[in-house]
């Protein structure tokens, strides 16, 4: 399950999410979107480590990041 969802259309690769993440789980890669911006990304392994603290989403100037947590049954 993905906790972080980064919208590729909205992301502008500024990297503010990268410095916001206390666990350094996010990077800006080389893949570019339609506007020509490189995209922020998080690996599947790091998705697991993510605590859903939302610091990245709070910093994102483009409201490109959504954060989810699995329901505990």
């Amino acid at each position, binding site marked *: *399950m993905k*906790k972080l969802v980064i919208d590729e*259309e*909205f992301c*502008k*690769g*500024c*990297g*503010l999410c990268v*410095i*916001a993440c206390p666990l350094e789980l996010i990077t800006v890669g080389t893949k570019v979107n339609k*506007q020509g*911006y490189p995209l922020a990304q998080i690996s599947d392994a790091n998705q697991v480590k993510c605590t*859903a603290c*939302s*610091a990245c*989403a*709070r*910093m*994102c*100037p*483009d*409201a490109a*990041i*959504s*954060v*989810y*947590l*699995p*329901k505990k049954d």
Partner: protein
Amino acid sequence: MADSMITVFERPHSLKPVPSHFCSGCHHGTVHRLVAEALDQLELQQQTIGIASVGCSVLLYEYFDIDVVEAPHGRAPAVATGVKRVHPDSIVFTYQGDGDLAAIGTAEIIHAANRGEHLTVIFVNNTTYGMTGGQMAPTSLGGQVTTTTPYGRDLETDGNPIRMAELLALLDGTHFSARVSVDAPRRVAQAGKVIHKAFEMQKNRAGFAFVEVLAACPTNWGLSALDANERISQEMMPCFPLGTFKDLSGAQG
């Protein structure tokens, strides 16, 4: 999202689902989101009227899913006054940059505050004229190189960085004046609370509420998004201290 997931953070409903024209790392988007979050949380989207100013922020009507009037350069507080007097039950806010609010619109902002108009004013201070390509703003720092201060802002001939949050706090009509920043997650959270409060005050008819937000303009500062973000605490905050300079929200109206 699947039912098995709890939403922790999502784009606010008051923002339209469209990418913005803002440059990479520009904080206008952050401030837009904080305003939208406040409107969502206070359930004000349906009754809010935004006043767009001139500059990069003019296009806010492309991003906010609310009614908006576009004002001439600097005149947003006057336009907002007109709207609010017609619709006193609506929530009216202006969203202005430093050139708009603190240079050409100085008269309008001072007199809207002095009349104690029931408005929320969001003032984005990035020490430059963004849309026109990085000219000196009234808030540019001493020594700051801009396209019209190529040798650095000379305080003797170009004036001093103007502190609007402090200046407006002096006016009897101002009920709330604060300066916040969006350069770190905890400060974004704090800025969100202050903006929320400024809208809540209007909802409670508590008078003129002013929030100055320190923001980055990476493109016109000639810095990367990260370096520009860093400049806010390194260079802007010593000149523009964060804090609340006036708060009458607790006082009896």
